[in-house]
């Protein structure tokens, strides 16, 4: 027996099993995290059923069921075997104060899912769960009762949404344009004054233009006020499940749903509609509700600008190192330096970007080209250009290494063949080697983009904001506004998850953003892997 035990221990099987468990643990970690994000992120769009619980004290609780847990033993010493409680999203923040509520299981008498309760998504205060008492217009009741009111409300909500769109258009496009023009004129006047040799007439003309713009502005603001009043025209009185009333303007409601009354197909349709609205809408309520469109847009813009900056430099450096430089100590040192750069923490790039791009370069640009706007900085503060450049520095090693890999995979015969046929070195680079190395360059670019998409720390110092007033791309000349601050998916996660006042209510939004970000990054990485495999296969085949 002892001999068998010794043999078993000597065989090392036990150690192998520990190693195998380590692999399994790593795989489970990846799988677990992905599953967690998927479940929480994808579940967000589903119209959840509403449950009405009757409690032992006769009160009702209406909301979405969000989970069940055993109460920590320390809180319930009287029940050593543990007691459970359920967590509900009860909404109605303005009435209850909190969005979520714990209910002890032994307090629940019965649970139903009434078909006539509705979930109202509001512009403020989060969701309202309850029924309709009446719909009125300027004090006159239009429809009373839950059924009547529901029917009357649907077209009114649509109307209100149209109005909101109009107001949005007026505010953003029309009034926004006027503000933009006023600011431009102000800067022009200041520029003329600074130049010291201006005609008073010119300034006077500009001032009249400003006056005109201001009158226009007043006019549009008046229209805006009128439209806003129209929003308040219809009011609705809602009742929560215990009978407390809440009156609000129909304009406050984004959409109303009766999830318990919806069929499966309807729910699926609604699922995709919700998904689309998150992708395409502007955020509301300090980013915790609404959509994430500006964050997606900002991320994409930043990554594009970064790509334009990083590819030429990375490719040139790789070509130099692999094709032109004499291989020796210097190139070895440079390779080590490039590798080191890849290992430098991203926050250090942020610090460098802030000091060098924002303060040194941006500050100089401001004094040279934008003195009229000072002391308000134009380029001397964080912006999308500086953030992109910072990330370009961060990702340049990725492109260099990948391109080098691509170049080293090109068989030697190709080069020699091309040169032997009389092509110059540049021609064989351009016509033969570059096309062959293209997958490598592309792999590098994709990896760089994937890294840049997920990187947050350097952006926090170089120009990302929680809420950007304008996109970096619009119809004002020169269309691309490099100096503007922007929103970013990764920063959105940090900001909403950690800086919003109501973290619990914001969590679903964070999971959705996380899901989108992770999906983008994983798809990018997988495509890079696929491309690399393709490249390896292609040259293996051709080398034979």
């Amino acid at each position: 027996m002892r001999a068998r035990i010794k043999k078993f221990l000597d065989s090392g099987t036990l150690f192998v099993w520990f190693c195998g468990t380590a692999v399994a643990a790593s795989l489970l970690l990846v799988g677990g995290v992905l599953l967690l994000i998927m479940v929480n992120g994808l579940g967000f769009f589903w119209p959840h059923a509403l449950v009405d619980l009757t409690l032992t004290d006769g009160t009702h609780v209406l909301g979405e069921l969000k989970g069940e847990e055993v109460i920590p033993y320390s809180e319930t010493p009287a029940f050593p075997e543990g007691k459970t409680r359920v967590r509900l999203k009860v909404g109605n923040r303005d009435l209850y104060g909190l969005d979520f509520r714990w209910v002890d299981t032994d307090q629940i008498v019965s649970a139903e899912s009434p078909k006539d309760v509705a979930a109202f998504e509001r512009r403020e205060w989060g969701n309202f769960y309850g029924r309709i008492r009446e719909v009125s217009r300027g004090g006159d009741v239009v429809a009373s009762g839950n059924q009547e009111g529901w029917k009357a409300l649907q077209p009114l909500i649509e109307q209100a949404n149209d109005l909101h769109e109009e107001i949005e258009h007026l505010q953003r496009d029309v009034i926004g344009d006027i503000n933009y023009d006023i600011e431009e004129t102000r800067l022009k006047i200041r520029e003329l004054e600074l130049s010291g040799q201006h005609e008073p007439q010119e300034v006077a003309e500009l001032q009249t233009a400003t006056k005109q713009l201001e009158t226009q502005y007043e006019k549009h603001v008046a229209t805006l006020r009128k439209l806003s009043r129209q929003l308040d025209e219809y009011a609705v009185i809602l009742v929560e499940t215990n009978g407390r009333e809440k009156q609000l303007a129909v304009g406050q409601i984004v959409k109303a749903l009766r999830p318990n009354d919806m069929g499966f197909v309807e729910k699926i349709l609604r699922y995709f509609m919700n998904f689309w609205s998150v992708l395409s809408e502007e955020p509301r309520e300090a980013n915790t509700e609404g959509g994430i469109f500006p964050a997606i847009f900002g991320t994409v813009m930043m990554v594009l600008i970064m790509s334009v900056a990083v590819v030429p430099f990375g490719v040139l450096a790789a070509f130099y190192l692999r094709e032109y430089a004499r291989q020796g100590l210097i190139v070895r040192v440079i390779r080590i330096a490039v590798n080191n750069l890849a290992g430098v923490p991203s926050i250090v790039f942020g610090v460098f970007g802030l000091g060098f791009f924002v303060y040194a370069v941006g500050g100089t640009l401001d004094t040279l080209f934008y003195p009229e706007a000072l002391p308000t900085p134009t380029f001397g503060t964080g912006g999308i250009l500086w953030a992109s450049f910072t990330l370009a520095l961060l990702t340049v090693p990725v492109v260099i290494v990948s391109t080098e890999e691509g170049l080293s995979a090109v068989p030697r015969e190709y080069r020699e063949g091309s040169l032997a046929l009389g092509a110059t070195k540049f021609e064989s680079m351009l016509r033969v080697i570059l096309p062959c190395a293209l997958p490598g360059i592309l792999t590098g670019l994709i990896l760089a983009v994937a890294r840049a998409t997920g990187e947050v720390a350097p952006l926090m110092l170089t120009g990302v904001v929680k809420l950007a007033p304008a996109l970096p791309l619009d119809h004002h000349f020169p269309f691309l506004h490099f100096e503007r601050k922007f929103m970013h998916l990764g920063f959105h996660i940090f900001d909403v998850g950690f800086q919003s006042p109501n973290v619990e209510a914001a969590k679903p939004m964070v999971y959705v953003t996380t899901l989108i970000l992770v999906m983008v990054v994983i798809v990018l990485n997988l495509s890079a892997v696929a491309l690399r495999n393709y490249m390896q296969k292609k040259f293996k085949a051709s080398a034979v």
Partner: protein
Amino acid sequence: MNQADPTANQVETASPPAPSFPSKITSRTLRRWADHGARGVITLGGWATIFSIFGIFAYLFIEVAPLFYAASWSQGTSVHIDTSGEAPLENVSVGINEYREVGYVLRNGDISFYRFPSGTPIPLKSVPDFETGEITALARSPGKDHVYGLGTRIGRVMPLYVTFRVTFEDDVRKTEPVVTSGEPFEAAPTGEPVARLAYRETDSGPIAAVLTGSGRLFLTKMQESEAEGLFALETESELLQAEIIDEGVEALSVLLLDDLGETLLGGTKDGRLLYWDIQDIQSPRLMGMYSAGTSITALSYLIGDRSIVVGTEKGTVSVWMSVIDPDVGGDPRLEKIRDLASHNGAVSAVSPSLRDKGFLTADVSGGVALHHSTSDQTLIQIPGNGSAIVAAMFAPKTDGALVLDDSGRLITYHFENEHPESTFSSLFFPVLYEGYEEPLHIWQSTGGSDAFEPKFGLWPIMFGTLKGTIYAMLLATPLAVLGAIYTAMFMRPNIRAVVKPVVEIMAAFPTVVLGFLAGLWFAPLLEKIFPALVAMFLLIPLAVVLVCVGWQFLPSRLKGHSGNVTELAAFVVLLIGTVWVCLQLNHQVEFWLFDSDYKQWLQSTFGLAYDQRNALVIAFAMGMAVIPTIFSISEDSLSNVPPHLIAGSLALGATPWQTLTKLVIISASPGVFSALMIGLGRVVGETMIVLMATGNTPVMDMNLFNGFRTLSANIAVEMPEAPHGGTLYRLLFLAGLLLFVFTSIVNTLAEIVRQRLRARYSQF
């Protein structure tokens, strides 16, 4: 070929070639140019990229360097003021405004202004109506404003205010001085002349401490209270007065009041410091008497009124601090905390900075010195020319000074003194800060008021970085390295082709996502299931041993080859099963092991506090971030061990286990080492996870259950608020530089090891 160029041009000008038949020479030249051009551009681009890599390091260094620059000085304008007709210069004070544009000399109730740097006198538009009577003493009330108390021959004290009115004309700043006087009050009821005076305006009214010519010390306060009058609030004032009768009073040479009007400090000619409690103005009480050695000639509080600068006749300059014993409580004690560079003669003036813990001292031989209390250094020492300095003021922006010597020379100095608070030792060694009992490492960069003493001890943050790194590596290393060994040595290649990329996907996870999950999902979860986690650490190894032994008895028909899917599935099921069991046992484990409340148990057994966002959470989150890095590189180096070596070992009769331990692991160990180094580099600089999943408190203990603050998170937290070019800004650059240097060393080491390993493998 070079001669071809002119010919090419000639050919072209002589007869333009037909478009379908381009000149051979031209096209060849063009091609050559293109080739040269491309070589130039590529070389340039290559070098530009490489240059920028080194540029980053250089730039960080340039931004950090000014922190350690020595302060320097230069002399500005020197004006001779009219000293004729009067007795020696006494009872004088000088002052200068924020922009060092206007300075003044206040002397026996006369005030004259000068514009700097030109030094031209400014005529006063309106001179206040001074109360008649000769001025016999003068005291400056420290603080942002130029407030003086003037003591007269008949024992009265008159407040005097100097203000600077700033106007803008065509964007040009114009500063005009204005002098106003306040209501005089009787400070010595005996009507004797005021010999020594301390004057301070507090929130509840002005206070004056007066030593009369005959050596009696009186304390007077104009208590102001608001009372409801007939039409509006009226300010009523009441004169509170007391005489201090303590031994040594008659020997007082300097008096000092604090800004709350709660204590009076006196320095005597025989070198003693007397400290009175004057909270109840009518019954002052001597709290203590301390010896400073020789005759005290100058006293001043530093901003915040907690540190006291004491200058003596011998020229010594020391800083004292009032300390309240936290155990005993009671009266504050005075303690000398540091000595600074001495002067050659008696210290004649001390002027504190209005924005930091720096101060200026001047002596009777004309020497001026600039010190900083927190960093315990004397920044500037200007040698004297022999004429005693009678009054000095440190400029409000700490960038200069105005001094007056007894020959009537009024001199301005300019200081380059950007970062007085940072020295190597104040950053990396313990410092005795105001209000603390002993020297400590503290990072606390910003406080509520100007009087806050910034505490720039970098060690707590470096410690936090180490703490996070150690715990994360402790968790990640075994998982990643063991996993790599299994994947490289025992796994079937077809499974490996799936498993490796899956683990590597984890490397692509944005760290902000890991941070969010760690902070908002895992941290609260861990708080609930901590006992289950402890159980997992105990039960999983046990379960592995048991299942492994049991597995040996399974028919091989079921098991198949080792390293196949069945075996991997067995590991996964084993893990999931054990984790599930542990979660179910959560309450029971807490009951059995931790006395039914693990937080209390930790507190009472080890004295450890449990925070929700703690180092354990970080270990898991950062571990997840580096496992793929370490795993992937280790796996590469393990599976790159030349196969014929392994085959040889097996052929000689070694078991796979012997081959693994005696050959593979040993020859691949440099690769595993470099994997660990690269992983280390990644953990050290990780920002988002730490930022989101620790409390970011710069504490210094290795407690696994509380948070910490790392260099990287510190940059992210404080950089947005750090003013450009300030000390904090540069210190954060220093933090960045430290990270840069550390990761560079680690990565270079890893890269060199890897290159050597590659060279060694290629020999076989």
